[in-house]
């Protein structure tokens, strides 16, 4: 399929999606959350939604009694990742609000679980996505909500 644009120079196409379409959401005033860097966030959140859901599903289905707290937490994390993915992808006022709430809860969650799992390991006999600040996932769970909040709270481009 022929691509309409042909990036000959770097200056020729600086931020076409982010710059030309600030109002891509369902309402006319909100800045889009699902374009440009936002689409990267959606992709990463989608990966984590799948990873966390699968992990929680397997843990709860096969060995729930071993570490109920950890596994319920896995399920909660999965739900938050799913909600954040959908909210970021849909955008609009509601999407933005839900995404903000998700990223905030996520950041608090990964910090709380991180500290708890380091200082009170007995509470988490098995790992969750957020154990040790997301170490098992390359600390992405710790960085992701920060990036999400930065993206959602960014100043409108002048």
């Amino acid at each position, binding site marked *: 399929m022929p*691509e309409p*644009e042909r*990036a000959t120079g*770097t200056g020729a*196409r*600086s*931020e*076409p*999606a*982010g710059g030309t379409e600030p109002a891509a959401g369902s309402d006319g005033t909100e800045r889009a959350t699902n*374009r*440009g*860097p936002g*689409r*990267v966030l*959606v*992709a*990463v959140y*989608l*990966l984590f939604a*799948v*990873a966390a859901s*699968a992990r929680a599903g*397997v843990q709860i*289905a*096969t060995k729930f009694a071993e570490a109920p707290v950890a596994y319920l937490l896995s399920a909660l994390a999965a739900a938050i990742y799913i909600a954040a993915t959908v909210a970021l992808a849909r955008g609009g006022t509601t999407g933005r609000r839900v995404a903000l709430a998700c990223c905030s809860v996520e950041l608090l969650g990964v910090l709380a679980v991180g500290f708890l799992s380091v200082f009170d390991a007995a509470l988490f006999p098995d790992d969750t996505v957020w154990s040790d600040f997301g170490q098992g996932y390359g600390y992405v769970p710790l960085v992701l909500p920060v990036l999400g909040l930065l993206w959602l709270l960014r100043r409108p481009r002048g």
Partner: protein
Amino acid sequence: MTSTAAAETPVGGALATVTIVLSLVLAAWSLLSTARNRPPDRSHLAGLALVELGLLALVVNAALAWAGDSGPGEAATFLGYLVTIVCLPPLAAVLARMEPTRWGSLIVTVICLVIPVLIVRLQQTWQVPGA
């Protein structure tokens, strides 16, 4: 040859190595495109197709072995990873087409960095834990 445990699984060996290297090369190329403010182009789509071919070959390998006398140590987890990993290159391609900017290239980068991790996890879940 090295006789690591991973090489003995049907999702290990040279095929897995080639796929991992392909994926990492594509990740580097996409990151370069991101840095140069280029959208993903046909080279990225072709690279994703190659990676997908490698992954499908791994799936066939695993299916043949599973039909034989061996099987994954953690069957459910292994299947989950297998299904997920095969979906990733098409997902990257779709998202790259949806986002014809440098950020589309970054999406390809991210997904191509995840694929090698999942291949290693595949190898780990095939082996019986502790065996």
